[in-house]
């Protein structure tokens, strides 16, 4: 009886704290790569009919929404120099504001006019929220808005900033929050303890501005976090920062890689596919396609296909195993955000002019099956959760749902 109670309690605790499949925990969702195979339902239409709700947001922001435990979280920055930082929480069901926490930026808030201080997407482990801003303020709150810890990384590392603005989004891997604070001066990446915010590790990175975000590879059940930068891709043990592999030869500093299992598709010399070696070390090149160049949007891997969008707004599908082009089609860009997809063979992408599109991937060629004009600049990447899509502009957060 006693044992049963404990078991039940443990089971309930696990059910409470473990991230649900419906959660979208960070930039580009699972593995930071944009594809959620568990998202069986995704909207078939973007329209007034499927618009579930629209919530106003303060100030500016282009970090994506994340969805955790029936709540949607998003960050923003306001004020004449964007020195007011906001973390906002909304109810998934109706978009009702649940709580908001505000902070003063402690680091530099200068950014190019196109981007802003709330450019990084927050991350979660299912229990807490980790919000990073371009000012290098890193704030941990629980899902009810209780403050757990704060870091003021520019006070700790005074030259760690980018006058154009930082935009890399952190990710939780196991028991570590991994963030890239990469810039021309005091450039570094770090792993932070989830409960205290203390550095678990910190390593110097190339002195070069870098807006890419970490992705996560898997090898024999072990996670390896991949840091992309101007010099290539570095694979690390997330909890220690110990190096596992290095892909030389340089890589883009804007679109991020996409990871799938033990393969990574890197925006490098066009697009380069690598597969990890036997023990995760010595990755081997599977293919390289110099003519397949992702623009600002990061590539997306779904099953046996890789999708990329170039700066001309051309969506291209290539074979995962060979890199051979299957088809290409022009969609309405330009794009700053990246595409995402669930299991339903539909790709979701929003353009800078506020046009959202769904591309049906089930046929011989990609076909836009739904289109909506939101009338606001959209620089962010959608989030998918529980059959719904979330997208934000500076001024609003939208939820589309239904018509699966």
């Amino acid at each position, binding site marked *: 009886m006693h044992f049963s109670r404990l078991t039940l309690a443990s089971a309930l605790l696990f059910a409470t704290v473990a991230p649900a499949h419906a959660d979208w925990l960070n930039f580009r969702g699972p593995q930071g790569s944009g594809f959620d195979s568990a998202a069986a339902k995704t909207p078939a239409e973007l329209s007034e009919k499927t618009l579930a709700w629209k919530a106003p947001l303060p100030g500016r922001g282009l970090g994506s929404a994340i969805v955790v435990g029936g709540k949607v979280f998003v960050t923003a920055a306001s004020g*004449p120099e964007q020195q007011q930082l906001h973390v906002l929480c909304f109810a998934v069901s109706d978009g009702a504001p649940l*709580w*908001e*926490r*505000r*902070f*003063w930026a*402690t680091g*530099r808030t*200068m950014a*190019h006019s196109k981007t802003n201080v709330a450019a990084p997407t927050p991350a979660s482990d299912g229990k807490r929220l980790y919000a990073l801003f371009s000012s290098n*303020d890193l704030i941990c709150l629980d899902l009810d*808005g*209780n*403050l*757990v*810890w*704060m*870091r*003021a990384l520019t*006070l*700790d590392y*005074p*030259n760690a900033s*980018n*006058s*154009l603005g930082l935009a890399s989004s952190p990710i939780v891997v196991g028991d570590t929050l991994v963030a890239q604070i990469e*810039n*021309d*001066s005091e450039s570094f990446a770090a792993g*932070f*303890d989830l*409960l*205290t*915010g*203390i*550095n678990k590790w910190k390593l110097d990175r190339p*002195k070069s*501005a870098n807006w890419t975000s970490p992705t996560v590879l898997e090898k024999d059940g072990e996670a390896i976090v991949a840091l992309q930068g101007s010099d290539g891709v570095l694979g690390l043990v997330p909890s220690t920062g110990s190096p596992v592999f290095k892909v030389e030869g340089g890589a883009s500093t804007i679109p991020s890689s996409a990871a799938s299992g033990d393969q990574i598709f890197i925006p490098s010399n066009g697009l380069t596919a690598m597969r990890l070696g036997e023990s995760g070390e010595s990755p081997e090149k599977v293919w390289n396609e110099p003519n397949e160049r992702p623009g600002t949007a990061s590539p997306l891997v779904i099953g046996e296909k890789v999708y990329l969008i170039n700066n001309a707004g051309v969506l291209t599908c290539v074979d995962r195993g060979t890199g051979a082009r299957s088809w290409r089609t022009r969609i309405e860009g330009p794009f700053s955000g990246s595409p995402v997809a669930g299991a339903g063979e539909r790709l979701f992408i929003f353009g800078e002019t506020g046009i959202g599109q769904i591309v049906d991937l089930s046929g011989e060629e990609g076909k836009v099956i739904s289109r909506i004009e939101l009338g606001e600049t959209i620089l962010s990447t959608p989030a998918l959760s529980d059959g719904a899509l979330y997208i934000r502009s500076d001024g609003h957060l939208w939820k589309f749902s239904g018509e699966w």
Partner: protein
Amino acid sequence: MKASSALLAASLCLTFSPALLSSAEWSGPLQQILKVGPEGAGNTEAAAAWADLTAHGPEVILPLLEAMETAGPIPRNWMRSAVETVFERELAAGATLPASQIRAFVVDRKNEPNARRLAFDLYGKVSPADAGTLIPGMIDDPSAPLRREAVARLITEGNAQLDAGEKEQSLATLDRALDAARDIDQIDTVAKLLREKLGQQLDLPQHFGFLMHWHLIAPFDNTERQGFDTVFPPETEINLSSAYEGKEGKSVTWQEYASADDYGKVDFNTPFSPLKQVTGYAYTEFTSAEAREAEIRLGCKNAWKIWFNGELLFGRDEYHRGQRIDQYSLPIKLKEGKNTILVKACQNEQEQDWTVQWEFQLRLCDSTGTAILATDRKPTPEKSAPARRPTAPAQ
């Protein structure tokens, strides 16, 4: 009736009296939050303290606001989120909030400027109409975020007067706005109106406190960006009559330079022509009326270092990622009399048209952005016709 009102007032006073509260049960948690240090030190204890504090009711709001006076930027943020958490929760619950004490905290100019702005926002939620009446009195407020509200009102008023054809009134209003404005965007807005709509001559460099008169020396080498860490002679001695060996063995000497730019830009390309992979130095002196705290505020898109009275203040090796007024704020202590400022500016190898600039802009002000002027400040140079500048950098 009178007696019960008095009792109620006394009771409210007792409940919300900051003097009593500061020594009460939250002084421990507040002290814990004040201990938060670099690299996350004290986070765990601060989280427990934050939970303690936010478990209280409205009585904790004033002590938290007051504690911000001695708090650094990180503890202040812990306190801010605690204040707002309690305030929002209690407001939603319909609890009685210490409105009059919050108001008193706002108007007391001795309180911490950011805390006062926060208190003003809180007060606006419980008493928006009265909060609005406070704004005009903030026109000379030492809290820049509060002053901003008053300036914004004057700009609106001046614009309305302009639209109504009341030029004299508008001029008076906008003059007051310019005198009071400390935020760059507001200064720009007012200056544009005064110049373009009212034909006024303005000395913006003096308003901002930009340093306009310098001695420049260049070019020293910065091939492969090595110049940033190389110690060239101006870093070891300031002798304005000396000649030194510069890049490629050429002799370089100090030369006088005066900027006429509204925003104080000191342009190395003007005397030395556009160059690449070079290092330059700018030197000036500032005569202060008194010993006081101040800030050097710099805008620069080249790699730079600054020495103040011979001590290195800070340096940054970032190139061409953007420049703006007040991009960097560096606290200093001015001496009475002569103070020296040396700026090192490095130009790199990039050749895109947006990497031609080899310049900086530097002003002295207090922490609110109010200009501090030298006792012997020279007149701002007259603007001449813009010189044609080659766009292609020479190697």
